């Protein structure tokens, strides 16, 4: 049923699949995991944007001046957290790491908002056919 050229075509397509798979795996290793979909960390104080970092960077102590004092924000491994905060309840510190798009850490007493913006979610929102 299949001619010789058909078989050659199938082999070629298998090779193409393998090649693109290799390229994708390569891409994941050197791009995807490290750029985190082009996401950014945006930090607001009293509603005004004061700092913006790509999620790729590693910053262990970003000092943010709020009304109560200095909050420290840490970016590491594609995640962000509030390291220390001068606020009384430390809810923002207790929230721990965030990494997804549109996740936020809010410190109401010190009026600091740390938000992950940009990029497109890697998760599927919907499948339409």
């Amino acid at each position, binding site marked *: 049923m299949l001619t010789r050229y058909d078989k050659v075509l199938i082999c070629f397509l298998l090779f193409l699949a393998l090649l*693109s798979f290799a390229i994708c795996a390569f891409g994941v290793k050197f791009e995807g995991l490290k750029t985190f979909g082009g996401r950014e960390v945006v930090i607001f104080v009293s509603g005004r944007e004061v700092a913006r970092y790509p999620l790729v960077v590693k910053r262990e102590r970003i000092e943010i001046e709020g009304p109560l004092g200095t909050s420290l924000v840490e970016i590491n491994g594609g995640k962000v957290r509030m390291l220390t905060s001068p606020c009384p309840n430390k809810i923002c510190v207790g929230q721990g790491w965030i990494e997804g798009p549109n996740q936020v850490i809010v410190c109401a007493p010190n009026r600091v908002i740390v938000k992950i913006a940009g990029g497109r979610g890697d998760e599927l929102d919907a*499948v339409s056919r």
Partner: protein
Amino acid sequence: MKSTRKLMVLSFLLAAGIVLYIVEALYLPSLPVPGAKLGLTSITTLIVLVLYSWRECLLHVVARTVIGSVLAGTFLTPVFLFSFTGALMSALVMILVYEKLYGKFSLAGVSLTGATTHNMAQLILAVFFVGHPGVFFQMPFLILIAIPTGVFNGVAAGYLVQRTAALSI
């Protein structure tokens, strides 16, 4: 007389293609890879291409995707855009391969090129739609799925063409 018969056969195949399109779009469970499907409609595309010529084939593809999506309720939505582009591109490639290389490739090979083109065209469209090249991560899986489905459709179309030859259409 001849053209009446041709009209009838073409509209019959168009109806069959539309039914396959709707059944596939609405009722068949999706394969594990998003965007992948059996592509049963390419069977009728191939039959029209073999029985008639590239003009009828293109007309068949355009009419099928338009009427089929109107009936499935997806006309002028992104879904329609995807299926229209994919079907048209794959039909164009199948026409080229069939006209120039048939004999070297069997119908299974022709269908295989069509299936792969269908997936690649939709993938490229998806990159523009989503605006992120990460969509290309689907490519190896789409190609792997296109191989069995493409061969299956080609073989099925081959059998059907053999049977219709006996009816002297």
